[in-house]
């Protein structure tokens, strides 16, 4: 059982404390993501573990042996590092570079043997770089080079693999391939993988557990769902994000909404009610908020993205249970909100029997003399799942004075009239 324990380390750059009291423990088959904003100490943590920066306090144990007490070579036989930047001074071939990964296993005068070359070959196959073997490293693209470096790390046959943003230069195809590879190796060979990510989606997709760093301390650590919550992200990154499970892959995915810092107080006294759903309302909500309007919205079902957004943005919303049509109570609440509002904006939302009532609410609003703006980015025809009833209603609205616009911005400019 391979265990890497980090116990209470403090790391300094000069006199500046960069990491404080970091404690955690990882074992084989753990694929751990290290996340955090810039400057939170992620790279420093990796450097501390890889022995590039000795902690002033605390100890790091690999299988109960203090890694700082070992010789470089001993550590190198067990730990491999894939750094962020790779500047290679001389024009070695890719195979030369991968073979350098065998260095810790060779004695001083030993030349690489068949076995070493076979290991290198396998590593390059796994990273899809075998065809680059003879090419000088400095002629390769950023992505190819990154994969060669990863192959080198694999050639070391480590038990612990540290990666600092391993996919930053790779295209999406290679990103997934490499991450799949690493995950597979982690499980099959029982590696410990510690990787720094900036990309939350990749992190959530591959990491079982994660640690979230903030200002040099561990803010949260544990299974990835408990670490990467909207709350945590908001607190650490100051960004509003929505974390949901993807309906198809069942993986977490994270969608940024806005930076919470840009929360502006409403400057105008105008209330605008938005009829939306399925994500169509988010841009409108954001823009209006930015412009200082007071926003309300309804009726939305609680699984709807716009509902999440409204909650996050602090917009009063009339909600409804999912997969059920709008109830009388909700409709009444909606109408109440509409009464308060000066204008209604209907977003580019698909209409089904479930939310058709919202259009009727709009009709009521129009009769009560509210300004109605209909945003039609795509034609209604394609969004009508009510056999034409939605289209009829919309046409009626338009004939009775609703303003049709083609974009959010246009809608905004119409609002200026108020």
């Amino acid at each position, binding site marked *: 059982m391979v265990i890497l324990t980090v116990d209470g380390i403090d790391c300094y750059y000069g006199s500046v404390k960069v990491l404080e009291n970091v404690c955690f423990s990882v074992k084989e088959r753990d694929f751990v993501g290290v996340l955090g904003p810039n400057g939170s100490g992620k790279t420093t943590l990796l450097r501390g573990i890889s*022995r590039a920066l000795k902690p002033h306090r605390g100890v790091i144990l690999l299988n109960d042996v203090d890694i700082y007490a070992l010789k*470089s070579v001993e550590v190198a036989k067990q730990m491999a590092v894939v750094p962020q930047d*790779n500047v290679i001074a001389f024009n070695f071939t890719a195979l030369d570079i991968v073979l350098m990964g065998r260095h810790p296993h060779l004695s001083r005068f030993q030349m690489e043997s068949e076995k070493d070359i076979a290991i290198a070959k396998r590593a390059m196959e796994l990273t899809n770089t075998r065809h680059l073997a003879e090419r000088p490293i400095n002629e390769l693209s950023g992505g190819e080079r990154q994969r060669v470096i990863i192959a080198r790390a694999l050639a070391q046959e480590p038990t612990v693999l540290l990666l600092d943003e391993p996919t930053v230069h790779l295209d999406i195809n290679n990103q997934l391939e490499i991450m799949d590879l690493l995950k597979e190796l982690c499980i099959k060979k029982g590696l410990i993988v510690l990787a720094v990510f900036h990309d939350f989606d990749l992190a959530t997709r591959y990491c079982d557990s994660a640690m979230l760093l903030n200002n040099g301390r561990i803010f949260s650590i544990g299974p990835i769902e408990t670490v990467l919550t909207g709350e945590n992200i908001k607190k650490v990154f100051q960004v509003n994000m929505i974390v949901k499970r993807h309906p198809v892959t069942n993986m977490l995915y994270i969608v940024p909404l806005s930076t919470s810092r840009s929360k502006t107080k409403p400057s105008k006294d105008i209330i605008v009610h938005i009829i939306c759903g399925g994500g169509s309302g988010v841009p409108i909500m954001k823009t209006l908020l930015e412009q200082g309007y007071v926003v309300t919205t309804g009726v939305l079902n609680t699984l709807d993205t716009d509902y999440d957004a409204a909650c996050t943005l602090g917009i009063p919303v009339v909600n409804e249970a999912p997969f059920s049509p709008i109830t009388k109570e909700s409709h009444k609440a909606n109408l109440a909100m509409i009464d308060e509002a000066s204008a209604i904006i209907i977003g580019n939302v698909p209409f089904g029997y479930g939310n058709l009532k919202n259009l009727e609410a709009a009709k009521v609003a129009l009769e009560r003399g509210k300004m109605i703006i209909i945003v039609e980015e795509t034609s209604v025809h394609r969004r009508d799942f009510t056999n034409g009833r939605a289209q009829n209603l919309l046409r009626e609205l338009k004939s009775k004075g609703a303003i049709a616009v083609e974009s959010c911005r246009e809608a905004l400019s119409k609002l200026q009239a108020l």
Partner: protein
Amino acid sequence: MTTTVMSANEVETTYFRRASRWKLIVIVLAVALTLTIILSLNVGFAQIPFSTVLNIIAKRMPFLGNLVDSSNVSYVEETIIIQIRMPRILAGALVGAALAAAGVVYQGIFKNPMADPYVLGVSSGAAVGASLAIVLGIGFTLLGVSTVPILAFAGSLIAVFVVYNISRIGSRVPVTTLLLSGIAVSIFLSAIVAVLQVIAGERLHIIVFWLMGGFSYVEWKDVLAILPLICLGTMVIYFYARDLNILALGEETAQHLGVDVEKVKKLLLIFGSLVTAAAVSVSGLIGFVGLIIPHMTRIVIGPDHRILLPTSIIVGATFLVICDAVARMIVSPVELPVGVITALSGGPFLIYLLRKKKESYAI
């Protein structure tokens, strides 16, 4: 290297046979060096027929000696070959080897194509030592050994020691700081040399000629003095050839791969400086060899230090032996300074190689 794409299997087999290919290259070059040495024994003011030259050498060989008839070889001819030409040629080979080895090491550690063996102040330290010895006219021999090489050697080591200690942070020596300290110290010491030149008065010429570098008066005792140091130094440097390869990945990465970076750097710097100091103490300041030979061999043979080092060493030795032969032949009996010949020939040849390989040579 050209960018023909070999099949992956082909590539791997070439790697297998790499070690034997390398051994072959080294042997061929060593033979070339030996031939060059023998041929340049034929070069000099005194016209000695080549057969006589061979005769004289053979006489001293363990087995051949008995087979050879040397009755009509005059004492003078023997003296010239054995006492005058042989030591200077061997010194040329040793100095060329040392400078090339040091050049490879420094370029590898500093990852800078402009690095040469003199970059850490060895040359200016030696110049100060030699100039001091010349100015003070500290009787030109001290216990039978000339004071100029001794002070030159001491001067270079002191200069490197100072540069090292200025740049040291704890037990680490950051590479950029080393380079800059080296430059600063060199400039300072060159100024001191200039002052010494003014004080020297009529001995100015001696200093100037020493600085220009040459092998005119090398004796066997000079050769024997530097032989062990240069052989030992280059061997130690070769121990760390693979480490030098890995240093190319960056110091931190090298550390991750198990290279004890600080220890390797220190050792390589120490021995690189030692062999350079030994070379300079005997030959004065010969430029370009330490800078150009590593580049030339790297362009032809690639960056792997396990072959680059032995190749550069042998090529450096051969190059300098040839340059010295030219220097003493071209306007005989006057001798041109060797540094002039190395620059005149080395420079254009390097340019030619760079142009031929411009795409793929990167450092």
